[in-house]
């Protein structure tokens, strides 16, 4: 991050808009049936009920960590926003089954790059909820995190406005 950006000289620079990493229905985190997300222990954000088994990069940045189990990925945007996307609940237990990754930890990514594909029907059939929390892990670095919920979105459609 450059010196001018750090100073946050005007509102335009302070505000970041994040697009949807998947096609789906956007809902508040409180609707997620898992206290780690619902009680915002990992940070504030929103959740998406996916309508297609594709996850794309919502920002330009770097892959912070792709779990071996491919069910969750963390991204660090060029502006320093730490984003965790967790595809499904308790899906760590699937050990990578039904998930396919297209990036690895440390890769540079551009908005829209394909990160993961997952088989929604198989994951559901195995007894898991596919709802996908999208969390800003460094929530404390921002004054406002405003999810735009209650609508159906395409990939990269605006879902989150955050302010420093």
């Amino acid at each position, binding site marked *: 991050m450059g010196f001018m950006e750090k100073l946050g000289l005007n509102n335009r620079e302070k505000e970041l808009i994040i697009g949807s990493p998947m096609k789906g229905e956007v809902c508040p985190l409180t609707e997620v049936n898992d206290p*780690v997300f619902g009680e915002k*222990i*990992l*940070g504030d954000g929103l959740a998406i009920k996916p309508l297609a088994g594709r996850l794309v990069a919502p920002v330009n940045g770097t892959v*912070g*960590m792709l*779990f*071996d*189990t491919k069910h*969750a990925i*963390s991204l*660090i945007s060029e502006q320093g926003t*730490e984003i*965790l996307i*967790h595809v499904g609940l308790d899906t*760590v*237990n699937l050990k990578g089954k039904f998930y396919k990754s297209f990036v690895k*930890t440390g890769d540079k990514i551009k908005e829209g790059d394909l990160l993961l594909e997952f088989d929604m029907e198989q994951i559901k059939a195995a007894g898991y909820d596919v709802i996908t929390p999208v969390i800003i*892990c*460094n929530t404390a670095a921002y004054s406002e995190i405003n999810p735009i919920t209650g609508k159906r979105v395409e990939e990269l459609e605006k879902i989150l406005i955050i302010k420093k």
Partner: protein
Amino acid sequence: MKEIKYVIKDEVGIHARPAGLFVKAAGKFNCMIKMKKDTADVDAKSILGIMSLGVKKGDEITITFDGSDEAEASDTITAFLVENL
């Protein structure tokens, strides 16, 4: 400065849920807390930081505490590890 070592027993290691709970526990203390695996060390109050270590079952982690409330933090985190990981 206090230091503890712990070998992870949980089947899936430190994934999102334990990372969140760990950071919540660690965040209550003022002292600097670091988690180390092999040669990499990270701020243990950062969720993405500790997830980035990719800690799995059987891995040994070292946690250091440095600051005025280090003794209490070390006790709390030890209890957390035994209970959750």
